[in-house]
Every structure is written in structure tokens, then in C-alpha cells.
């Protein structure tokens, strides 16, 4: 069916919201951000023009914040991140650039082409991919370059995401290195380029292609995933296979991967040279007035941390223990420390870290706190990764809205 019937859709939304609300009461949660009106299919993201529908009519997906219908941009409602460190496949965010997305994939006919500067050009079936290479698993965060773009000030164009354009999964598949070694990389190779099955409507629209250096492609971590959290990938997350580039922004994680080309010169296609470029400055941070900045392709992620059991504007009780919890990730390496402040950043306490599924994964943190006095208070959380990189005190800015990772703050009312 094209869309679920109104009854089915509103049933599931109501159900979802009812569950969330019930959970909220139990956990002292506020409800400042949503729902916004009697029409319970709407959510209000915390920036101007932030009203969104909660859509339940996308295939293999539960309720998602609708950023764009075609091609789909679907954001994970932030409550989902409180459920655990792995983001369920049916709530994992979705981001496509080009509108012609195959809606039928027949694995029997699917081929992964490997060609270019290699000795043995080949077209692998999925069966061969699974059978001929040892399986490899890694937990890794997939985060859109523009996650949290809606929070940029001054605002910039692009998908106006809140913080939910990210997710963490256990990816299973094969190392790209094994595939390239089998095909035999020829002398003169410098980069490896990846292309999926999605295309534009207009012939002039450039196909989405992303490239990694040969060394990076062969680092033994970059992989081709055929399973996500133990299940096939949802079609909108790249079924049947997608590239996984641990620690790097999702723009490189090409979905419905069908073509791998080994290049003998650096890729200058539109998606590498014009789109997804950042100022070559610390934190990709410039001022809106700054001109003639050297730009480079976006690359490694930076550390982030979030509260998941409290929302901005929440009401909490004084003189009673309150369990704060959330998630953190280190970017391109593990989380060393998560620090929490309950006094606007004047003092910081170390949070307890949960199980470690691997250095590229989300990690849980938790901390028991008690507010001595009543009134408004600001909570903050900051991650420091194992390379010593900490989240910055002030938000970065660039014209594309990339790489936001400022320390998160929540205003709460203590009563």
C-alpha cells in the first residue's frame, strides 16, 4: 500500500505517544518539546520553523520525524536513544540524496562490481560475498555530517535536523581490505570510489559517489555490511549492502553499494570536491563573515554526549536522588570520560560508563545527582575521547551546518 490507512497510522502514533508519556511520568521527565497540540502526530523541534509530523508510513520503519518525504529524510525521535546503545533498525534515521531509489531488490540478481586499477575486475553475488570472505563485526555510530544542523546560529540551509540524525548498530559483513586484496590492487592506485543504486531524475544530476584513500579503504575496519543488529538492513538504510566507515561521517557510508572503483588519481567528482567539504580549521569552525577559507572533504567524527532521560524544560525534585543518564561516543576513537555538571559548568563530576561494545559505538553513561536548592538550573554533559579531544564550550559554525558537537545543556526547574 502507498500509505497506511489513517486509522492504522494514528493508532500506532497514539500508542507510541501514550507509552512515551507513561514512561515520562515514571522518570520525572518533562514534556516541554512535544506533543505540541491535540494533533498528536506533530512534534516541535527546538528551533524556529521546527514543527514536524511524526510519520509512521515508511516501509520497515516505526514512527519517525518527517524531514522530507522524497527522497526520504527521517529523523530518529530522541526518546529512542534512551532504550539502549544500539538503535533499533526500524527507528534508525534515514537520509537519501537522490530520488530514484530502487523499491525492489532481488538479491539473486544483485551484483557488486569491483573494477578500475585492479588485476581482476569482478562482479560478486551476495552469496559469494558471504561465502568467500570471513565475517567481520563491528559496533559503530553512523552520524549524518549535518546532524543537529537546525541548532546552528545563524541558521544555515539543508536538512533541519535536531540531534536524531545518528544511530549505532552492530554491523556484520566483510572487510573491504579482503575484497580488494582478492581483486588485486594494481600499481598506481590511490583512492577507492563507492557508488550505490540510487540515481537522480534528471540525467544532469551527478550520481552520488564517495571516495576513500587506498590506505583507509584497506585499514581492516572499513567494511561492507550485509547485516545490521543481526538482521538484514532495512531498504531505506541500504539493503542489501552498504559501506561502513567506522569513526567517519555517514556521507561515506554508501547505501545499496553496487560499484567499487579503484582510482589512479584523487576523485574530484561533485560529491567529493563541492559537497560535503568543511573549513580546514579546528572543529570546522569559522565565523559567518570569514571568506576564502581552505575547504577539505569532511572526514573524522568528533566526540559527543547527550542526556537521554531528561528533556530541556523538565521539572525535577529537590533533595531527592535523580538518576541522570545518556549516551556518548568518542568520534573516531573511544570514550575516555563523560563529565556532568549540575551547576551550569562551574563544577563537573565523572559519570559512570556502561558496557563498552567497541570504540566506535555509543556508550551509556549514568550519574546519581541530588539538587540541594530549588529554582532554575542548567545541566551539562561533555565527553572526552581517548585521544584527549573534548567537546567544546561553544558551538562551531560553518555554512553547511556540519560537525556540531558543542557541550549539551539542559535547562531544568528544580522544585
Amino acid at each position, binding site marked *: *500500500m*502507498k*500509505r497506511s*490507512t489513517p486509522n492504522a497510522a494514528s493508532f*500506532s502514533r497514539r*500508542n*507510541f505517544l501514550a*507509552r*512515551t508519556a507513561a*514512561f515520562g511520568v515514571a522518570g520525572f521527565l518533562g514534556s516541554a518539546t512535544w506533543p505540541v497540540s491535540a494533533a498528536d502526530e*506533530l512534534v516541535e523541534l527546538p528551533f524556529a*520553523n*521546527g*514543527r*514536524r509530523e511524526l510519520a*509512521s508510513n515508511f*516501509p*520497515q*520503519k*516505526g514512527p519517525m520525524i*518527517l*524531514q*522530507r*518525504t522524497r527522497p*526520504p*529524510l527521517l529523523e530518529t525521535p530522541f526518546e529512542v536513544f534512551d532504550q*539502549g*546503545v*544500539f538503535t*533499533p533498525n*526500524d527507528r534508525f534515521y534515514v537520509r537519501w540524496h*537522490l530520488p530514484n531509489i530502487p*523499491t*525492489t531488490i*532481488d*538479491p539473486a540478481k544483485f551484483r557488486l562490481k569491483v573494477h578500475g586499477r585492479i588485476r581482476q575486475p569482478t562482479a560478486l553475488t*551476495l*552469496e559469494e560475498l558471504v561465502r568467500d570472505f570471513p565475517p567481520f563485526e563491528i559496533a559503530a555510530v553512523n552520524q549524518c555530517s549535518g546532524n543537529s544542523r537546525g541548532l546552528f546560529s545563524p*541558521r544555515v*540551509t539543508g*536538512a*533541519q535536523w535536531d540531534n536524531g540524525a545518528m544511530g549505532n548498530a*552492530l554491523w*556484520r559483513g566483510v572487510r573491504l581490505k579482503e575484497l580488494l586484496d582478492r581483486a588485486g590492487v594494481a600499481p598506481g592506485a590511490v583512492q577507492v570510489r563507492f557508488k550505490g543504486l540510487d540515481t*537522480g531524475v*534528471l*540525467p*544532469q*544530476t*551527478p550520481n552520488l559517489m564517495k571516495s576513500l584513500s587506498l590506505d583507509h579503504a584497506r585499514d581492516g575496519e572499513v567494511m561492507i555490511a550485509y*547485516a545490521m*543488529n*543481526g*538482521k*538484514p538492513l532495512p*531498504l531505506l538504510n541500504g539493503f*542489501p549492502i552498504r559501506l561502513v566507515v567506522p569513526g567517519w561521517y555517514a556521507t561515506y557510508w554508501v547505501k545499496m553499494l553496487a560499484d567499487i572503483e579503484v582510482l589512479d588519481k584523487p576523485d574530484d567528482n561533485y560529491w567529493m570536491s563541492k559537497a560535503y567539504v568543511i573549513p580546514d580549521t579546528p572543529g570546522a569552525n569559522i565565523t559567518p563573515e570569514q571568506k576564502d577559507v581552505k575547504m577539505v572533504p569532511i572526514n573524522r567524527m568528533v566526540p559527543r554526549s547527550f542526556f537521554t532521560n531528561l528533556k530541556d524544560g523538565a521539572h525535577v525534585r529537590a533533595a531527592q536522588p535523580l*538518576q541522570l543518564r545518556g549516551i556518548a561516543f568518542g568520534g573516531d576513537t573511544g570514550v575516555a570520560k563523560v563529565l556532568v555538571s549540575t551547576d551550569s559548568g562551574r563544577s563537573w563530576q565523572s559519570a559512570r560508563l*556502561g558496557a563498552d*561494545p567497541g570504540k566506535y559505538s555509543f556508550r551509556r553513561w549514568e550519574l546519581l545527582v541530588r539538587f540541594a536548592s530549588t529554582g532554575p538550573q542548567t545541566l551539562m554533559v561533555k565527553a572526552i575521547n581517548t585521544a584527549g579531544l573534548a567537546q567544546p564550550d561553544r558551538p562551531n559554525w560553518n555554512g553547511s551546518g556540519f560537525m556540531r558537537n558543542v557541550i549539551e545543556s539542559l535547562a531544568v526547574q528544580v522544585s
Partner: protein
Amino acid sequence: MRSTTYSALRIAIFLAGSLCGAQPLFAVNSPSSKEEGAGRSDPNWSKVTVELPASITLFPGGSAQSVANSQCLICHSAGMVLRQPARTQMQWTETINKMRSAYGAPIGAGQVDALAAYLTRVVSVDSSAQSASVWKKEEAENGKNDSVDGAAIFAGSCAVCHQAAGTGLPGVFPPLAGSSWVGGRDVTLVQILLHGVQGALTVNGKSYNSAMPAFGNQLSDAQIAAVLTYVRSQWGNKATAVNPSLVSTQRAATAARGGPWNGDIDLAR
């Protein structure tokens, strides 16, 4: 190979169930514990078919509305634009020119200023809400009006061949009542109306070889949507409504097409 079609409803029910119960601290919702065989076994490669929802949001009224609806919607739905922050006309001009140069949007140089002025006015602090309300309003109106409009268009343009009760004429004109085409993909039906069909076409197991004219030049997007919605809800047919924005998008996407579709060869897949 088993074919799997996912329904949003089934997934919604699964999801509602999965949200029950409190979450213990540090619960790692282990990906391998959710369903049988997860994580450790080789994938079971089943064919996957999904249907993506079509946007029914159109750009609201204004001088350059038709340019926005005919050009912007070729590649993306309107909601993305209506959810942007408020911007100056100069900023919109930059964006429109990027769409033209980077992505090949066929917006004429002479249309840029009017389109930028239109977007500057339309995209505001509450246009996302407007988009949501437009969504609901259109849905309500489609439900109310289509049977009236659609029925009239059907009687005037379709019934002469397909017959008033949608039965067609055996061996000559295919039936619409109970037709798997009518109950199938809305996009295919929109394309049939826009461009017509020639050549052998199999309907419910019987082959027809008549020519259906193109209606793309005679009927508006709203009229095509209305008559298809009517046909898909009559004589026992129970398929979803067709939205004008889908027709608009499909019309734009295949604007260059010169002739009718070639029956089963082009349409059955």
C-alpha cells in the same frame, strides 16, 4: 526466492509492543537477542519490495507557485523547502542557482528572481506547520471531493470504452473493476493516463491489444488524481487515493516522453 512486502501497519504493531516495559539502566538492547537466528547466521537473502509514501504537499499560493510545483518537485518534495529557516531573497537566489548548476534543475534564468522572491515570502517561521496543515487539509479534501469530480470525469472521458460499471468490453477494452492494474501501483496508473498505452496489455490474465489515448494534455494533475481515486474506489476496487502532487511529480519527471507506453513490455514489472 520468497518475496517480502513490508506493511507499515505490521511494523507499527511490532514497534508498539517493543516499547512496553521499563528499561533497566545500562540495558544494551542486544541486537542478537531480539529475533531468532540474529547475528550469528548467514543472511537469508529474500527479495525485498517496499512502497515509499508519496508527498501530497504542494507549494502554497503565490506568483511563482507553479514554477515551484513544476520544477522543485521534480527532484524533491515541497516539505524540505517549507521546513527551512527564513532566509533573504539573496540567499534563496544562491540556493536556486546551486540547484540549477550542481543538480541540473531546469529552472530558466528568467525564472530565478520570481522564484526567489516567492520562497522568501513563503518560507517563514511557521511554514513547516503550514506544510503539516496543508497535508491534512488536502487529505480531507481529497476524501470529500474526489468522488464527485472523479465520477464526472470518468463519465465524460472513460466510460465510453471502459463502460459505466467498469466492466470494459470483452476482448476489446479491458475492465477496470477488479483489475490488478487499478489496484496496483498508483505511479503506473498515473503514467498510463499521462501518456496512454499501445501494444499488448494483459489484464487479469487476458491479453488486450487496443490503444488508450494520452490524457496528459486534456486533464489537469488534480483531475487525473481525482479520476484515478474514483476508479480505485469503485466496483469493489479498494486501493488508496491518488494525490495531485504525485501526478505533478510524475508529469514533470516524464515531460520529455513523446509517445504512449508499450503495454506489458513497459508497464509490467
